[in-house]
């Protein structure tokens, strides 16, 4: 990193120059490094979730494939397109800020916000769909379907038998959290066709590598496919789906807040060729949120597509 010429600005400070900086160049450098460092730590933050995803997908690939097949790739794909376009409008905003073009800036920021809102709207549609199909993996957050669903045991929560004390303890007076109840009973899942087919294939050829070791232990009881246990693993997939997309959506909301502020500032003609760093930095944040989605989409929505498309 270079050092800076030690001239003090005797004349009026450039617009937006903070007092601790000698000149705009130093401020721009600082703000830029700062934002990149922030994004690096955001990557590490999401990284933990990607690790959990990696671990469980390696353990239970069929459950993940089945879960993923039930996500609507159309909505997911639409969201991807929406975000990519919003990144375009964001990049153009930076361009027009550099060109001191106030009107275009405001229009493009509003467009970016529009696309961001569309994204969130689509997520709302998807989440509602999950809610009504009972695939939200947390007790109390599903539309509980009273009528029987065949063997999904929807109406009878199965207590977690390993830990009577914990179950008991959790309902004790004084504890501040809810009872830990295995919400397996409320997570509704009916599609066992693919897994039954795969189990049959595996049994027909025991040496073939169709199910992983963890799957051979994890889906079975007494040598037969145990639907409850399989459903548990699909539930893990949905949990990862909700946490990852939820955290991403939270970042998107923050991004919209950022855009609102930026829009206001741009409207007041704050940005120009001499001072446009806030626009560029906001753009960096927006692009980051976009890139996270670019990773999330295939990892969550496009697993096991060959089972649907190719049929095998």
């Amino acid at each position, binding site marked *: *990193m270079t*050092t*800076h*010429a*030690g001239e*003090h600005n005797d004349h009026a400070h450039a617009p937006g120059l*903070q*007092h*601790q*900086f000698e000149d705009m160049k*130093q401020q721009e*450098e*600082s*703000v830029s*490094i*700062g934002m990149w*460092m*922030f994004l690096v*730590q*955001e990557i*590490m*933050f*999401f*990284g*933990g979730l990607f*690790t*959990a995803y990696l*671990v*469980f997908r390696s*353990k239970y690939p069929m459950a993940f494939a089945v879960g993923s097949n039930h996500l609507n790739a159309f909505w997911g794909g639409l969201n991807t397109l929406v975000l990519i376009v919003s990144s375009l409008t964001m990049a153009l905003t930076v361009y027009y800020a550099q060109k001191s073009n106030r009107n275009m800036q405001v229009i493009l920021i509003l467009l970016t916000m529009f696309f961001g809102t569309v994204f969130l709207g689509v997520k709302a549609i998807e989440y509602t769909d999950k809610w009504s199909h009972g695939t939200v*993996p*947390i*007790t109390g957050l599903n539309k509980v379907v009273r009528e029987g669903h065949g063997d999904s045991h929807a109406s009878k929560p199965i207590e*977690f038998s*390993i*830990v009577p*004390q*914990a179950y008991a*303890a*959790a309902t*004790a007076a*004084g*504890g*501040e*959290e*809810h009872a*830990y*109840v*295995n*919400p*397996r009973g409320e997570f509704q899942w009916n599609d066992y066709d693919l897994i039954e087919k795969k189990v049959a294939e595996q049994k027909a050829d025991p040496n073939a590598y169709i199910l992983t070791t963890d799957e051979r232990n*994890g889906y079975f009881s007494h040598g037969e496919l145990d639907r409850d*246990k399989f459903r*548990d*693993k699909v*539930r*893990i997939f949905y*949990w*990862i789906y909700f*946490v990852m997309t939820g955290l991403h959506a939270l970042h998107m909301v923050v991004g919209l807040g950022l855009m609102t502020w930026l829009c206001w500032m741009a409207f007041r003609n704050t940005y120009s060729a001499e001072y446009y760093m806030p626009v560029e930095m906001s753009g960096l944040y927006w692009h980051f949120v976009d890139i996270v989605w670019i990773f999330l989409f295939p990892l969550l929505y496009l697993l096991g597509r060959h089972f649907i498309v190719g049929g095998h």
Partner: protein
Amino acid sequence: MQTTEAIRPSITDEPRQNYLTNGYTIKSWLLTKDHKRIAIMYLISVSAFFMMGGLYAAAIRLELLTPASDLLESGTYNKVFTQHGILMIFFFLIPSIPAVLGNFLIPIMIGAKDLALPRINLLSLYVYWIGGGLVLFALMQGGVDTGWTFYAPYSTTFSNTYVMLVGLGIFVNGFSSILTGLNFIVTIHTMRAPGMTWFRLPLFVWAHYATSLVMILGTPVIAITVLLLALERAGGIGIFDPAIGGDPILFQHLFWFYSHPAVYIMILPGMGVISELISNFSRKKIFGYEFIAFSSIAIAVFGFLVWGHHMFVSGQSMYAGLVFSFLTMVVAVPSAIKMFNWAATLYKGSISFDTPMLYAIGFLGLFLIGGLTGLFLGAMGLTVHLTDTYFVVAHFHYVMVGGQVIAYLGGIHYWWPKMTGKMYSEFWGKISAMLVFIGFNLTFFPQFILGYIGMPRRYASYPEEMQVLNIFSTAGASVLGVGLVMPLIYLGKSLINGKPAGDNPWMLPGLEWRTQSPPPTENFDKMPVVTWEAYEFGEENGLDLEAARRRDREMASDFQKN
């Protein structure tokens, strides 16, 4: 060639404008952007948390005087050691040196007016308070008993205590760490004065740069781990629950992926302080400056690769264990390099044994033992016997207390005259440094033996044959406690009627000593242009040593006259 004026030691009678006198309202403090004021507020906060953690430690040692669980029942004891760990690690050890000394000194040491992002600095303080407040609130409601390591499934499914609330506090507090680290990286890159090249930086700054890398990369992982823990507890998700397909060992991997680098967040700034102390109190440039600088970076990088050495007996595969053991040995080498370089700095120096130097020498001895016992724990076959025993407890207290706390105290004493403009009683400073050193060894050395004979950690009651060593340990703890409380008294007293310190009481060349004590709000009357290398002590670097000697003689004769 010097372009700055020769620095004269001057103690004037009339108080000058400085960062402390620049506004007396609460608002001027709470809404300040001045990194020095933020550092002082951090100082008060971390000291408060340290005292609380210390009270818990006292409770632990008192309980362990007797083999039975008589002073505290086991449920309470479990909460006490958990909370001791949480308060000390997250609210004292991790923030202390960076947020207090780093915040105060880094801009001055590099010749800048402030950190690059002062409002982010203030935000990190607020976030620290919020996180601390949440944890304190949880403690008052009843606390947690999971151990500071929060292992699943106990913490997710079985513990009946305020895990989520404490987890939230830790989550929030993590952002304080991240923002501090972010600020330091930016500042060190962009705010250096003209002429202050990377290799003219004080090693204190290098150490904080390395620490900041770890803070930024590592802390988000604990954040997500705590979040997963909370979701598991609240929603019964089950990723750590084997009955529905989860894996408790995954929690350990995620947890230790941060918590191991966290220990480097704790020790690297301490090592930076020690580099300053040893060099300045030997009046000699640190031996192997580049080696120490690069070792800091190496420790930061390799520190991310060794987390599995906390999991050798946890069910991890032998092969993973081999990799982690190998890397653990590798990460020990840069620390060894530093130890040798520090010792070599003393060679042919001109060593004065002021209080900060006593702390530095204490550090050398204690960190030596702590670091070497880390090798014991990195050797797989031996660690099987030693894991989860008091040997581990002794090891980490040697490095964290014997290392980091001693470095922190040394730094506080060293820069106290700069931060406050007052000198403390050198006599009491030396007494307390020695009490800390003696008390510390008495407390923790017996614990190595206790660990080898098998006393497990986190035990409220233990077999009778282990009582003698526990009594030694508690006796030492009382000495240590006295030594740690004493600075509160004499440092506090110095604020009231301490001798004015002068700008450069020890005639040292660092940029921080070339400005007022206490510094003015913008740090320097005239921003410096650096043309000299780091740690150059002679008169050609602008230090008017003759004038300083004259002044000392005058003061001594004044003293005799009166």
